[in-house]
């Protein structure tokens, strides 16, 4: 079978569905965030909150709202875990220890869903439902809100405000994520994803052995886990578990859920700024990277490189029979190209090159198409950098969408771009450079010997610093060092870029609009999209090539 014969049919299905939904969904999201009308239920909610929905916030005030809401969220999820023994449906599980509870609270509030814990033996239904699943909704809504505020910065002229965070949060939840999750959960339920409060039951198997069968309110959590690009599994095996993802079509449906909002947001952006071609230029850059990465990963896994895959005759270690190689790689690629981090196969057991591609997907900064909201603002920051570089090359004052890219703007964009690599490389380097930490990492955390062990640690910090949440899951991350370091990484990786994006939005909003002249570099052409892809790839390659050469590249090529 040729590559095209196995990859094109499922891929084409995804492309056709996205082509059909991105317009109505993108336009609907644009209307949602620009409408002057509030639903009556929303008005009641705003009264309760003491928020005037007509008031618009400065970027600092908007940021304060984001940070206040997120801080309270971390506290609530932490407390729920620490008091688990007192909560209903805790399945007899004790309170989660401090370090792990901190890591997990941060992980879900930052839309990362990194899991240092194994759910079956750590969390009861109440913490999952009332703590984690709620954060799956609201962290995605925060991402959407920040993206929309950033886009408003381009639309505004000589304005001091970006909109109201509480209104954006409420609308993202009530008008987009909750209706979407309701529909998705019902479809998953019909596909065999479980939804019950049965706890663990023990059955006598056909041959007289004993087997534990788990229960849980899974479908409701699974729906928002995918739609909100969160990714944290109800079970340890995540979407490889038959109760989370029973069949090839539910798996493809989950792939589409991950991509639906991120690939529709460029349309929302284009609609809001009144230049749809600009949105499609962004979409084109996302799609180009997406297709190349997915194809490369599929080739790598199908070729079964490496000693173990060669010994088995196929890279089926860690993969489910019903999904096969192609269905596994499609899911893994989409999950890391968005910031979801769910898995339906175990990336740690991928071929060296096949396992490097999910890492590269994250190292690109989660922009192809990235997480809900964060993918759009990430790619727009890269567009700002691209325009700046293009302007330098031809000696023109750089401007994007009528906004000048001055010193303050490029500083903020640069800080945004530098945050993630600094966190990845510092975290990984510290883990190996500090003798005490290295002993802990080597002795306790790393599962696989040799070069692959470095890859496990590199993958972990890459995942945390991109708020992805997937893992080379052989790594034991439930240690004081990794719980703390990855927790801090997730926090900084989520909120520092949000600070820079909102500050940048404030700077753009305060500007007037530069008229388009013959000297303006167009940003809605194939050429500009190509440049955007080039800048994205080059920034990543220059930053990460050396460390990739030490880990997966060496493992795959030696």
């Amino acid at each position: 079978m040729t590559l095209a014969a196995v990859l094109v049919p499922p891929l084409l299905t995804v492309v056709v569905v996205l082509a059909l939904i991105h317009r109505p969904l993108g336009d609907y999201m644009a209307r949602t965030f620009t409408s002057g009308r509030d639903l009556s239920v929303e008005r009641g909610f705003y009264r309760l909150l003491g928020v005037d929905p007509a008031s618009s916030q400065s970027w600092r005030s908007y940021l304060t709202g984001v940070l206040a809401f997120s801080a309270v969220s971390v506290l609530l999820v932490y407390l729920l875990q620490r008091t688990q023994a007192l909560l209903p449906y805790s399945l007899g599980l004790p309170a989660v220890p401090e370090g792990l509870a901190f890591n997990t609270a941060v992980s879900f509030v930052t839309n990362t869903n990194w899991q240092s814990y194994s759910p079956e033996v750590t969390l009861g239904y109440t913490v999952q439902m009332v703590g984690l699943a709620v954060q799956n909704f609201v962290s995605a809504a925060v991402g959407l809100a920040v993206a929309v505020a950033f886009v408003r910065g381009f639309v505004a002229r000589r304005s001091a405000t970006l909109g109201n965070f509480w209104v954006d949060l409420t609308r993202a939840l009530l008008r987009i994520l909750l209706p979407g999750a309701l529909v998705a959960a019902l479809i998953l339920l019909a596909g065999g994803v479980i939804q019950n409060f049965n706890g663990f039951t023990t059955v006598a198997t056909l041959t007289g052995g004993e087997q534990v069968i788990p229960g849980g309110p899974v479908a409701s959590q699974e729906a928002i886990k995918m739609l909100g690009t969160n990714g944290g599994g109800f079970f340890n095996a995540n979407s490889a578990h038959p109760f989370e993802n029973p069949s090839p079509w539910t798996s493809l449906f989950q792939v589409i859920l991950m991509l639906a909002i991120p690939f529709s947001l460029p349309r929302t952006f284009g609609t809001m700024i009144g230049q749809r071609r600009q949105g499609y230029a962004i979409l084109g850059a996302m799609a180009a990277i997406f297709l190349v990465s997915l194809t490369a990963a599929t080739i790598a896994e199908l070729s079964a490189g490496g000693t173990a895959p060669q010994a088995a005759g196929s890279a089926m270690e860690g993969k489910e029979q019903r999904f096969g190689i192609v269905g596994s790689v499609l899911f893994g690629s989409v999950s890391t190209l968005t910031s979801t981090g769910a898995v339906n196969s175990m990336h740690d057991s991928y071929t060296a090159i096949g396992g490097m591609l999910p890492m590269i997907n994250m190292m690109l900064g989660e922009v192809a198409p990235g997480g809900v909201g964060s993918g759009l603002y990430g790619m727009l920051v890269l567009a700002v950098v691209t325009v700046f570089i293009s302007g330098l090359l031809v000696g023109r004052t750089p401007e994007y969408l009528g906004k000048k890219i001055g010193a303050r703007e490029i500083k903020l964009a640069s800080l945004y771009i530098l945050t993630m690599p600094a966190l990845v490389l510092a975290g990984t380097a510290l883990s190996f450079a500090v003798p005490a930490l290295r002993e802990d990492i080597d002795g306790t955390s790393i599962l696989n010997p040799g070069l692959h062990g470095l890859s496990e640690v590199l993958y972990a910090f890459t995942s945390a610093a991109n708020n992805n949440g997937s893992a080379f899951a052989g790594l034991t991350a439930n240690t004081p060092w990794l719980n703390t370091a990855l927790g801090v990484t997730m926090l900084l990786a989520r909120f520092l870029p949000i600070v820079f994006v909102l500050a940048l939005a404030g700077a753009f909003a305060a500007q007037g609009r530069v008229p388009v002249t013959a000297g303006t570099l167009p940003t809605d052409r194939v050429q500009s999209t190509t440049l955007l892809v080039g800048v994205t790839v080059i920034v990543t390659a220059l930053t990460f090539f050396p460390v990739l050469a030490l880990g997966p590249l060496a493992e795959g090529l030696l």
Partner: protein
Amino acid sequence: MSSSRSTVRQLGTAVRALVVLTLVLGVGYPLAITGVGRLALDDRADGQPVTLDGRTVGSAIIGQGFTDAEGAALPEWFQSRPSAAGDGYDGGASSGSNLGPENPDLVAAIEDRRAAVADLEGVDPAAVPADALTTSGSGLDPHISPGYALLQVPRIAAERGLDEADLEALVDATTQGPDLGYLGEPTVDVLQLNIALAALDT
């Protein structure tokens, strides 16, 4: 400057917002989905329990082992894939092995399994398919490839004194093609196959 006051005010707003949202999204929403699962659908929300002679023997979509207490294959049954969930097919500990492509333990495990399966089935080691040699992502994979199922037919026919052609027909009838004709791989549900096998053998 009012910024600290505004921070305090927004913290209050955040607390109120999170309380209400937790009730709506963390309680109302999952209970609504649970209600629909109870009312509108069959046993899917409960994980499709399989009953045989009035007792539940497992789930139609969760794999199980057909081995003795030591993990040795029971030769009269079709065998599932190797599993890394607990001691094998432990539904309380779903997991892959997470062993990397160059891990010597994994290479050794694959070689051991190849020899063991070839020995059990009395076939050339090269004939053993990859799904028989590798653990799945969940450790609860309910499926094997049609090729692995057919490989086991002669052994089971001999053990039970059944006709190979009948067993091949059984495998054929249990084989599911890819979803919608093109998604995923063809599969054989091992529990379902073994239940059909038991029925055939009575």
